[in-house]
């Protein structure tokens, strides 16, 4: 009984010999062995190319927590992208998902680290995300 994420990375021709990396992580609450037990699974239309979208949609902070995020650009146009940022006055960009691409990562989410921001290259791009988390402090909403 647990939630797991498995990655398989394969290539027959990136090197002289085939490359095959496979790894699995089991999701636990911060620093321990207790299974994570909360999830938000959303499909979102990024209706504006200038207005950022936050994940989650409101500030739900917890200073010590565990967050895992799967996010996918659902566009079928390979040149349409969404930029992934750490929340800030202008946002700090670090990820870029072109049409059809996905990312998965664990991250922090507190007042110091900020939330995840998403900004599309054009209005109307659909994305989906799965945010797996633990006890969010809803009293800290702003």
């Amino acid at each position, binding site marked *: 009984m647990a939630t797991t994420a498995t990655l398989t990375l394969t290539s027959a021709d990136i090197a002289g010999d085939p490359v095959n990396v496979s790894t699995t992580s089991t999701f636990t609450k*911060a620093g321990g062995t207790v299974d994570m037990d909360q999830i938000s699974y959303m499909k979102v239309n990024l209706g504006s190319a200038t207005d950022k979208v936050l994940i989650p949609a409101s500030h739900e902070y917890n200073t010590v927590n565990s967050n895992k995020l799967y996010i996918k650009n659902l566009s079928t146009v390979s040149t349409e992208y969404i930029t992934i940022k750490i929340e800030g006055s202008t946002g700090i*960009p670090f990820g*870029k998902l072109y049409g059809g691409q996905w990312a998965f990562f664990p991250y922090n989410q507190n007042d110091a680290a900020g939330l995840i921001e998403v900004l599309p290259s054009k209005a109307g791009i659909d994305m989906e995300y*799965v945010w797996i988390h633990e006890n969010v402090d809803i009293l800290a909403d702003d």
Partner: protein
Amino acid sequence: MATVTAAITLTSAAGDLTTDALSLSDSTSMTITGMATTGLARAKVQATAVHATATVLYTADDYAAGPHLYIKNTAASASEYIWVYEDTNDRVILKMAGGDWAFMPLKGDTTIKAYAPSGNNPNVEWIVYGTDQ
């Protein structure tokens, strides 16, 4: 020309995240002429905070836009964290517990580094691939 395929499977048993079992699978392939890669690298993370000696996972603009990064914290204990940050503003982007992995296409114009607050020097593994420039 080379092709790399990354596949993910997320699974959750019935009663864990939701009443019913969940399963999500997805994959993405990247085919590039003249693809370059760092290969699979492994290093002890020595720095305990944001610092010049932090482990460099990716150097800004080393690849054209959209390089892919795979990272794993190989520590056995979930309390053994590796923090991954961007080196322009020193903002933490990933908090990786022991056993965690991450996979993402990068924007590519920012250096990415790692440190481990515990001082126990956990190992980090990583691969970057994309278009060399």
